[in-house]
């Protein structure tokens, strides 16, 4: 009853594409981790396919949960922990809507397995407003209307935060480059650029 020419091969190839991309994105997002990851991979013992207990540190809080090893960080955050600020849009490491900070640097949560995010400091957009007060960057996003439908916005805020932590006063060119890993469909780029420049203290 099956038609291998029809759907299985295509879906299989797609699957390969995803994991290859995921590995690339992870390395790209966190330079310097590659060797460690390789070493860890050699030492790691196989887990799964059933759910395994893990602990994640998110916005300074520890969360215990059980996930299948195939569950991505974005799905664990959104579906299991109810932390829904980061969004899932492309699920392929392209659009950046799922961005979170991993040890202070922006990373695509759709391209990282939840199990491999253990032991790392995860910050989501929710963690950027301390005691419910918007950060300077978030206030600048509001002031410059850097959100329309708002679905990509948390990813832009997180990517901007990552940029500003690396470079406190980015130039316009650095903002455009630093946010090159995020996409917006409604067209908020001008407001976003102005917001990041203002939060960074650069003259516009």
């Amino acid at each position: 009853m099956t038609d291998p020419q029809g759907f299985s091969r295509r879906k299989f190839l797609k699957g390969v594409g995803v994991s290859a991309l995921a590995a690339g994105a992870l390395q790209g997002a966190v330079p310097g981790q590659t060797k460690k990851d390789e070493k860890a991979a050699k030492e790691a013992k196989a887990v799964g396919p059933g759910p395994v207990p893990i602990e994640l540190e998110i916005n300074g809080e520890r969360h215990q949960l059980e996930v299948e090893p195939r569950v991505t960080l974005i799905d664990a955050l959104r579906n299991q922990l109810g932390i829904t600020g980061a969004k899932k849009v492309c699920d392929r490491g392209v659009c950046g809507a799922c961005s979170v900070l991993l040890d202070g640097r922006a990373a695509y949560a759709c391209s990282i397995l939840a199990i491999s995010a253990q032991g790392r400091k995860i910050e989501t957009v929710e963690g950027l407003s301390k005691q419910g007060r918007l950060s300077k960057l978030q206030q600048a996003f509001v002031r410059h209307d850097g959100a329309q439908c708002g679905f990509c916005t948390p990813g832009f805020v997180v990517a901007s935060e990552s940029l500003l932590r690396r470079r406190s006063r980015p130039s316009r060119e650095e903002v455009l480059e630093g946010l090159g890993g995020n996409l917006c469909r409604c067209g908020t780029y001008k407001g976003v650029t102005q917001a990041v420049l203002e939060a960074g203290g650069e003259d516009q």
Partner: protein
Amino acid sequence: MRDVEKAWPALSDSTYLGKRSPRPAGPDKVSGKAIFTADVNRPDLLHVKFTLNPHGRAEVRGIDVADAARMPGVVVAKPLVAAGDEVRYAGFEVAVVAAETEEIAREAARRVRVEYQPLPHNVEDRDPEGLGEWKNEGRARGEGDVEAGFAAADQVVEGRYGAPIITHCCFEPHGSVIEFRGPEQIDAWFSTQRISSIGGDLAKETGVDPARIHAVCEHLGSGYGSKFQFDVWDRECARIAQQTGRPVKVMLDRDHELMAAGSRPSAFADVKLGVKQDGTLTAWESRSWGSSGDSDRGSLRLPYVFTNGLPNRQQHTAIRTNTGPSRAWRGPGHPQMCLITMAALEDAAAALSLDPLDLFRKNLGLTGRPEVYAEELEIADRLMGWKRRWKPRGQGEGPVKTGLGLSMHTWGGRGHDSQCRVTLSSTGRVDVACGTQDMGMGSRSVLAVVAAETLGLPLDLIHVQLGDNRLPQSGASGGSTTTGGIATSTRTAAVDAANQLIRKAAPELGADPAECVLRDGEVLVANDSDRALSFGDACALIGQEPIVGNGRTDPELMTEGVGGVQMAEVKVDVETGVVEMVKLVAVQDCGTIVNLTTAESQVLGGCIMGISSALYEERIMDPVTGDCLNADLSRYRLAGIGDVGEIVVHMMQTDEHHGRGVIGVGEPPVISPMAAISNAVANAIGVRVPYVPLTPRAVLSALGGVK
């Protein structure tokens, strides 16, 4: 007795109307607190995924869901087609599964076994030749004496132009969450552009009384025209929720979204344009074609904007392609008609060695609003430095050429039917409730600005509620109809509430209600500002029953019909074919502007979406299998933050425009970018790239004379 006047205040008298203010939902959106339908999680939730047909067209020989159904964690696995059924596009749903987790559901959907017999299909729409059975040739139509028009022309200029099928690509996918609270009560969350009425579809599907369906869409990750329907995925979500008694969530995966959840029809045309040496247009003839997917319908109205009295003859052929169905895409039909028309005009100007700005000006008499366009062209000229910098085609030195291009557009934007309720309580709380939705255009801001303006209160004292079918009914958000509808229903509701409050307060002030006004947080006597009550003290007189002001769409406060001019500057590398956006100038009118900040954002967004379609977007189908080759965002490219260049928006906000009444502005700014950018590229490189997107390959092919 003279009541609070409903007419909009003059720009010079207004506090918020037409001024800048931040959108009320901004803080929630930048902090991750805004809850979209995609964010709704319910206890004991089931996740739904679909098995999709991978063929352009096929007959289903058999379908077997047994393997999927056997998987631990799968609760429902159900075929949606049967042996003998024909499936007509890649991405069509052939089976549905519901499971305890998204991962299990996705894997189960893959394990559904379907045997197909592929059938002849068509995914070609760029060239109508040889498409015999796949096309439906429409009758020629037109008006005026075309022969006389061409006879009067000094030149007849011919060209081919077009735009392929693109997708809506909403970042929040289509989807819903449906939960039965017992057999006769439903809570539902939809990602929808019509929250007031979608519960009715759910009622029909489930047999539940519509009054016992609570439908919510607090925030909408946009729609662009693709989220009006109660779709097959909503239907299956509802059925599984009813069958299992558990809450069920469906959110389309990105490939499903790009293949099945909305696309914009393609449009191509061969155009003959008669023109005199001084640039006067004399006749238009076109043969156009395009595809709306698996449909033999579709039409184009050509020419565009320059329509009044230009003799024309045209014929359109609808091409049936085995691709996901089209849906209204921001400014339906207009971006395509605009590209075809404005490119033909620019080619005519080039053939006559005229500046296209002069040719456009020469023919403004053919447009519906010549004075507005003349004014907008002048402003755009100044902002772009067009007259100072424009050069005839292909005159740049070196491999990187600069070019300027121009376009004009139009839209209606008349407000839809809307109702609004403004409630004032004795504590001084102000609630504005409207069953509309905010998909990013700033509906909340419209409600808040109008209520604050009318009641003379600070913006942050207004509590706004929308996105709920229990609120006063409001129309679907499409065609730029929302702002006109909700601004005027809110205005009339707030005026009603204000008059009731004044009647309560006037005796305290020892004044006639007709003498009183609401201003700066006070109820006061207009000619004697010493006699005033604070808004809070006035509300304290209300008593147990709150004041309820009701309002409806008011035709006297709104109107329709906008123009708009855009000018693009590009750099094109003729060695690599890469087009770079340098600048886009957008001059836009929209009558009475409610919030200048969000109106400008709509224009900026339209420009950027338009740039994306001009340079990158195309849904690519495999002619052999009929499958979609770029159903993911790594291959369906969108413009990024570094791709759009400088964008300059000028909103027409004179007393005259302000005095027209409210008009929506969602669609107009997305119409012109393809045309303006295509014209700028032609100006830069000296030849027309016939079709968008203006990819390196398309640019190099045009330069090499490759058809």
